[in-house]
């Protein structure tokens, strides 16, 4: 996919070594997600793979967070509003140090905590909101951003939405309210992989032009290639961006990104990879077995 220059987006310089390190992390996260899906029968592989680079950019570069103090009052808040991306988030949080990676060995076990959606903040460090039903995360994020304003805090709130999630009316209620409140320390990223569960998002709900919709709703909008680490780091460094408005980042992505036979194939919304497919995927990702 060709890089998409954002309408207003002027990249800020990022060191090559940082980009290389994050790209490397993202490859590893992808491999772990695919392995876990195979081992535990967890679906939504395509949706997880499309948002990996965004999660890595946020958790390893942008967010002011301390895994040793996950409830710190002044931490930035990140909400995975597209809750079905949890298998990706679980890996990223473990790698970032919020809990031991060994905990993920119990993924999918009866009585455990890891399955298909994020649990509540009381049940897993690093989680800000339990999601799974679409169209909830942004409103909760607005409440968090308002809390900061009321209590004189300067933390930022970032919510990751799917393009299908933009079907939900509550998203647009939230869009108008955040704009009215001029919550400039609030941002959304839309993982725009052009698919929802059972069809092309443009065909199901006429989602385009998505960035313009957010702009029309009073947000400061950006468009980036959601797999270009340099663009992601750059755009995420603009919260707030000086416009006084909340920020909508439309990240153009590919569902199933990173594995040729999964890319842009919506069967991988629900399909579970075989052992042979896991091995093939890891070879493509350049991750050792």
């Amino acid at each position, binding site marked *: 996919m060709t890089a998409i220059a954002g309408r207003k987006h002027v990249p800020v310089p990022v060191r090559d070594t940082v980009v290389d390190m994050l790209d490397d992390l993202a490859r590893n996260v992808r491999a772990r997600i695919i392995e876990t899906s195979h081992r535990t029968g967890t679906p939504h592989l395509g949706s997880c793979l499309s948002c990996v680079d965004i999660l890595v950019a946020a958790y390893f570069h942008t967010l002011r967070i301390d895994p040793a103090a996950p409830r710190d009052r002044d931490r930035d808040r990140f909400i995975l509003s597209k809750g079905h991306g949890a298998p990706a988030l679980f890996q990223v949080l473990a790698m970032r140090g919020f809990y031991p990676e060994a905990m993920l060995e119990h993924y999918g076990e*009866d009585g455990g905590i890891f*399955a298909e959606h994020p*649990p509540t903040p009381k049940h897993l460090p690093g989680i800000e909101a339990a999601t799974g039903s679409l169209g909830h995360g942004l409103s909760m994020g607005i409440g968090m951003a308002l809390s900061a304003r009321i209590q004189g805090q300067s933390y930022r709130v970032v919510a990751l939405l799917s393009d299908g999630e933009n079907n939900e009316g509550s998203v647009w209620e939230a869009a*108008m309210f955040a704009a009215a409140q001029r919550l400039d320390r609030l941002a959304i990223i839309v993982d725009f992989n052009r698919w929802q569960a059972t069809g092309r998002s443009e065909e199901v709900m006429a989602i385009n032009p998505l960035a313009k919709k957010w702009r029309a709703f009073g947000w400061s909008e950006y468009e980036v290639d959601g797999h270009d680490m340099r663009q992601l780091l750059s755009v995420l460094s603009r919260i707030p961006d000086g416009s006084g408005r909340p920020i909508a980042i439309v990240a153009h992505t590919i569902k199933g990104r990173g594995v040729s036979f999964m890319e842009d194939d919506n069967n991988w919304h629900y399909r579970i990879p075989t052992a042979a497919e896991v091995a093939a995927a890891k070879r493509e990702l350049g991750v050792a077995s």
Partner: protein
Amino acid sequence: MRNAFADEITRLGAVDPRVVLLSGDIGNKLFDGFKAHSKERFYNCGVAEANMMGVAAGLALNGLRPVVYTITPFTTTRCLEQIRVDVCYHEAPVIIVGTGAGMSYAELGPTHHSCEDIAILRVLPGMTVLCPCDAVELRLALHAALAHDGPVYMRIGKKGEPIIHKTEPEFRIGQAITVRAGDDVCLISTGNIMPVVLAAADLLEAQGVSTRVESFTTVKPLHRERLQELFSRYRVVGVVEEHSRLGGLGGSIAEWLVSQADGPGRMISFGTDDVFMHEVGTQDYARQRFGLTAENIARTMLERWRPH
């Protein structure tokens, strides 16, 4: 009750910096007093109740005590999933206030009627349901709700309801209030229908039937000890509420009544508990967790069937 609510929340907001008032584009002049001293803690969230409820949860999870206010159907069923997921699943201390209990807005038609709200909200795990019968109970309930670390639904009337309590009763969540003593029959009620219940008690008294009246301000959690006392003492007990007979206070008491070991119904209820299952697992695991297995059903039935 509406004015008493505005008055009391204005007072509470002045002394408690955690109180944030969210309104769904109603109560135009009602909250001028609150805005006068706490403008930065009042939000007109517009006609967008789903968002308003999610925002409230976000506030509550970050140290504040949001109070959400609009007309009953719009603060309950309109945004039910936000209440269930954002508020209850997160155990977020949000106070949800619905004005226009039951048929308070009868002339506005069924869109504004509220005769299912108790039934629907009381089944949500962790939810406390309070239905004050007058302005006195409302003020006490609001204080108690703010002191309570969890979600509360408060169902209030409109304006101009008579005062029932001439003196301030002792109020605790989960505790019924005896409004009138009596020896022959008992009327249990919740919320804004209380004046009618008291008038009925007067009619009974005129017939020489001594009538006790109980105010169950708290529908959930139910005051079981009081029910035990009432049902063992009175042969005839009536439950009155301005709400559907399905699932409200009456339904709630009926569930309790038939589950009594020595009760007349002898019904054993198998089902999920009043909780969210936070741990994950297979359907079989979940069924086991709640005793929904053939072994448990058979064992429990046998225990009840065989005399000890």
